[in-house]
């Protein structure tokens, strides 16, 4: 357990090293936040209470999206490129000899990465957004910890998806195609472009049931006070269910892949 805590701390420190990149990232998240916020104002001007959000809730949703974009790695990014590279080059064979659990090792590192991004690239854009727009920040203090738990579960779901993407490299050798599909699905089905509440009919139902909704839509609804009491329990259950299911599939794929590993001589 201590080992994984050290790995997580390492993941945090690793991203904390890139200070200029973090500032540049904050700038980007803020620019996109402003652009999206204005388009949402135009949309909610036409149709107030669209998707059950009032204007300030819709604007809050925009800034939450920017704050969680890197934390929940909605468009990918993080460990998966590195793991895919290790699989491609065969370095993964060395990892398999280590007395560690491969999945937990990468999860710990990714949790460290996510915590850094939440602090480094989440808080400042949110504050800047709150200065420029009227945001619906939680009124009851209990919502903040509830939100953090939901974000944590979202990160685990995101990890589990990206772990599957990375493991696909065992079979595909080049994981670029799988990574691209994950990028597209993550961008669209997390609700980053538009809240999933606004997706019409069957598309909306499917989108809300897919694991990607655990990355942004669910944490945002917790933040906006749409999920309380049993609703909150159900939200957690949804996220934890997907997390467990995807982690299990990851484990199965991992053991199948391990049996396949052929270490090139030399």
């Amino acid at each position, binding site marked *: 357990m201590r080992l994984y805590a050290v790995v997580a701390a390492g993941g945090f420190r690793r991203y904390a090293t890139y200070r200029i990149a973090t500032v540049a990232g904050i700038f980007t998240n803020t620019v996109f936040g402003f*652009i999206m916020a*204005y*388009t949402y104002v135009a*949309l909610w001007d036409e149709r107030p209470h669209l998707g059950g959000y009032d204007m300030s809730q819709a604007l809050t949703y925009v800034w939450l999206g920017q704050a969680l974009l890197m934390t929940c790695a909605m468009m990918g990014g993080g460990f998966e490129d590195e793991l895919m590279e290790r699989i491609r080059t065969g370095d993964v064979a060395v990892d398999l000899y280590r007395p560690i659990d491969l999945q937990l090792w990468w999860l710990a590192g990714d949790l460290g990465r996510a915590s850094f991004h939440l602090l480094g690239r989440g808080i400042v854009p949110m504050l800047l957004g709150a200065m420029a727009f009227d945001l619906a920040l939680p009124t009851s203090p209990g919502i903040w910890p509830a939100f953090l738990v939901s974000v944590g579960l979202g990160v685990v779901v995101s990890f589990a998806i990206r772990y599957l993407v990375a493991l696909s490299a065992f079979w595909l050798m080049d994981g670029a195609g799988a990574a691209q599909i994950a990028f597209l699905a993550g*961008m669209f089905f997390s609700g980053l472009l*538009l809240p999933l509440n606004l997706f019409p009919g069957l598309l909306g139902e499917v989108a809300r049931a897919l694991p990607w909704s655990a990355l942004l839509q669910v944490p945002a609804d917790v933040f906006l006070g749409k999920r309380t009491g049993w609703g909150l329990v159900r939200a957690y259950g949804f996220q934890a269910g997907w997390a467990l299911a995807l982690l299990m599939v990851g484990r199965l794929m991992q053991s199948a892949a391990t049996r396949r590993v052929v270490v090139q001589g030399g």
Partner: protein
Amino acid sequence: MAEALEAVGTEAPAAVFEPRSRLAEGVRAYGLIAAMWLRSTMAYRASFVMTAFGNFAATAFDFVAIMLMFSHVDVLGGYTLPEIALLYGAAGTAFGLADLVMGSMDRLGRRVRDGTLDTLLVRPVPVIAQVAADRFALRRLGRITQGALVLGYALVTLDIEWTVARVLMVPLMLLSGAAIFGAVFVAGAAFQFFAQDASEVQNSFTYGGNTLLQYPPTVFATDLVRGVTFVVPLAFVNWLPALYVLGRDYPLDLPDWVAFLPPVVAALCWVVAGLAWRAGLRAYRSTGS
């Protein structure tokens, strides 16, 4: 990567050393390097088709999001879906063209960091041509295709009173727009000589600018519209010329002939970007490792 580039160097040294203008030399070098990357891409055709489609789909999703918005409303910022499609298609195509030709410029910061820029400096070929052609990615045609399709949809659906000026405005807008975005790519890369791992700042102006221009100017605060008209003149990519085609007023009080300025603005942007690039290159100090 370095070996591959070297291959181009050995292929054409005689030609490169012939006296010719810097521009012609740069264009020729760009062509050679781009052709090499093209051959390397085409070695894996299935992969190329997949990534080109991915490029298409990635950009298509943000238009799908706009269509989903229009499943709830009839107008956004006073504009209908076909009108927004015109803005979207024009910005997307212009940006796609710039991205195809200059999109690799954002890798410059990385080259400054790891010192591989040095390799480019010792070759008798303009550095900018080498950086711009680096990893030339034909898959970016996917983005251009998507923009062009939306533009086509807009032009077919909209009821425009076509005049000669309006017809000419469409290609003028796309080419000048691509040139303006191209200048932004160069200026952004020049900035990275100083702030090495700040490529995201560049993305704010390129990808962010593209996203901004996909919506009508009426959506945004007047100060923001002023900023992208007079400071970073992205408004000349599509807002001003497209609103002329649509016969709509620009939210800022500008005379009509401003809509014809995009080529002039593009030329000015290139002068500024060129000066910035030169300043950046002069200030460059190798990593020393």
